[in-house]
């Protein structure tokens, strides 16, 4: 048992994966000597050398494209995209190549590539450094998409993602990188695609992932003081969704709010709302409501506290589900 920041837990997880399997490689911009701009790969270059920790030229399409080639040769590349907003130059390699190649080969090719994306806002950054592009990838069949919310999950899930035979888009909540928690490295980990009830409750189900889990837990604490019991589910897996867990919770509570930082319009919350409504139609006392980023580009940082759904906005959505 050790107390780790989320960033350090990822670092330890990467190290463990590299020790376990010599085919695991780290690739990206500044992942070497610098250890990544968030230090998630800190020390790996020193210990594993430049043939396993590769500082690449500055081009995201190149990073994913060459990672695919390395995977075809039997390697397991873990690519870092420096910030969420910089994944788009790699969109073609991710969407038309990484996601589809295994199918295209009738299953003969496997692409165990992990694409790590520090995501989300709340750190006072300039534009393109605070985005939440998960819906682009959940809409892309062939990818698995997960998001960790705490150090323990970070440690275990990154290793599961690396062991997974399919490509995994791995979201890391950058404003939680420095959050600390106890990590039991020896504990048996939950399967990667299972969600978890982060806080049980009875009145309304609040679904969240990544950075919003903490916000929703705080909302639950505040709500409890006013006598309302929120069940907070940490989705962990965004594609596939752990629908069993989600439906079970909503069937129990009869109300549901989904929270994410990404713009509401065509966001992942929509998919969850549609599925929950279909599966739990007779259980729902109110429509599934969404507390999300506005359907605008991410604003300048002095406005991000308004843009990001906070405790109050989550509670407002909860309140509104009781108005039905």
């Amino acid at each position: 048992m050790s107390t780790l920041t989320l960033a350090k837990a990822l670092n330890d997880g990467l190290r463990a994966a590299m020790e376990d399997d010599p085919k695991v490689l780290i690739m990206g911009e500044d992942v070497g000597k610098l250890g990544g701009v968030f230090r998630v790969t800190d020390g790996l270059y020193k210990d594993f050398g430049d043939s396993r920790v590769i500082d690449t030229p500055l081009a995201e399409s190149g990073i994913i494209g060459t990672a695919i080639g390395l995977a075809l040769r039997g390697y397991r590349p873990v690519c870092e995209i420096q910030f969420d907003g910089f994944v788009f130059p790699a969109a073609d390699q991710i969407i038309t190549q990484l996601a589809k190649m295994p199918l295209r080969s009738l299953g003969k090719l496997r692409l165990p590539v992990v694409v790590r994306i520090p995501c989300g806002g709340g750190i006072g950054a300039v534009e393109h450094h605070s985005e939440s592009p998960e819906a682009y990838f959940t809409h892309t069949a062939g990818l698995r998409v997960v998001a960790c919310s705490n150090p323990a999950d970070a440690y275990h899930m990154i290793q599961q993602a690396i062991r997974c035979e399919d490509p995994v888009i791995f979201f890391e909540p950058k404003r939680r990188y420095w959050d600390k928690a106890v990590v039991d490295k020896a504990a048996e980990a939950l399967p990667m695609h299972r969600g978890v009830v982060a806080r049980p409750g009875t009145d309304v189900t609040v679904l969240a992932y990544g950075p919003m889990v903490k916000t929703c837990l705080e909302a639950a604490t505040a709500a409890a003081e006013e006598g309302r019991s929120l069940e907070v589910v940490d989705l962990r897996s965004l594609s596939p969704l752990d629908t069993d867990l989600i439906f079970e919770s909503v069937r129990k509570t009869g109300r549901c709010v989904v929270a994410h930082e990404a713009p509401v319009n065509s966001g992942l919350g929509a998919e969850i709302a549609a599925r929950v409504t279909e599966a739990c139609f007779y259980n729902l006392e109110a429509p599934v409501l969404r507390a999300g980023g506005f359907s605008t580009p991410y604003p300048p940082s002095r406005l991000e506290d308004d843009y990001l759904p906070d405790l109050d906005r989550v509670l407002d959505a909860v309140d509104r589900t009781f108005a039905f």
Partner: protein
Amino acid sequence: MTVDASRGAEAPPELVQLLTPEGERVEHPAYDIDLSPEEIRALYRDLVLVRRVDMEAVALQRQGELGIWASLLGQEAAQIGSGRALTDADMAFPTYREHGVAWCRGVDPVNLLGLFRGVNHGGWDPADHNFHLYTIVIGSQTLHAVGYAMGIQRDGADAASIVYFGDGATSQGDVNEAFIWASVFNAPVVFFCQNNQWAISEPLEKQSKIPLYRRASGFGFPGVRVDGNDVFACLAVTRQALKNAREGQGPTLIEAFTYRMGAHTTSDDPTRYRVATELEAWKLKDPIERVKAYMFKSQIGDQDFFDAVDAEAADLGRDVRKRCLEMPDPAPLEIFEHVYVEPNAMLAEERDQYAAYLATFEGGE
């Protein structure tokens, strides 16, 4: 064959040619090749057979048996020459037009048809042939080839990768990133660009103002232009480039100067954008005729040999046709297969729902 001369980026070599359109063997200071009569006959056979497969595929498309076909007509020498330069350990990354390379890698031609018939997206196991799947998104395979070559490097293997792409592809960001990666990591990769003068309706001038092989110099590695209709030259130049790659000398860009004799694909109508005289001029440079002329002259092949190859080609054509028509349509539920290697609950549910839906039609309709 001196390595230096072939790699001098500063003073680019002229078009490398070892066999003229008239079938004369010529010398080139940097490249030469010594082929036995048997090897030459084998190359000739390759050229004729892949042209025959291609012809059959065009016919199958006309008859509605394929959705579309991208003909290699005119590019046989570039593909056979480079394809035969590969060792078993080398890995090839094709576009959608490398039927000749596929042939060299031992891919059953019928397997190529699957994609164009619409029964699958690629019917062979790349690992069985060290021949990757066809790639349709222009240029994206160049990065895969470089990554693969970086893997070869890490394995310390005696191998290289080769990647095929067209003149049009050189404009894609990915291809230029691949040049950068290959150069920076000194990756054992050969970039084989078939400049067939056209990217659908766009002539080369829309992609580059200077000869394509010179692009390499801007990235710090050698480029060479080879007569893409000369199978000997393509073989010699590719062999050397692969050797250099395997020996740690890094990438080479080969521009095979050739011509797309047919339409871009069977859906295309080239009369809308190019003049017939251009085609006529290139007919005189046919990649097969010049080998035949040379073989006749040098008595490496006689009429019996040529007739035998033609007969073999006819058989092959018939066989390909027959087996194409026999190719079974995939079953509806195969839509859900192979999307993921590991189980995916959400997709399994979709699959089950669709299976149940299909079942409601059983006995019906």
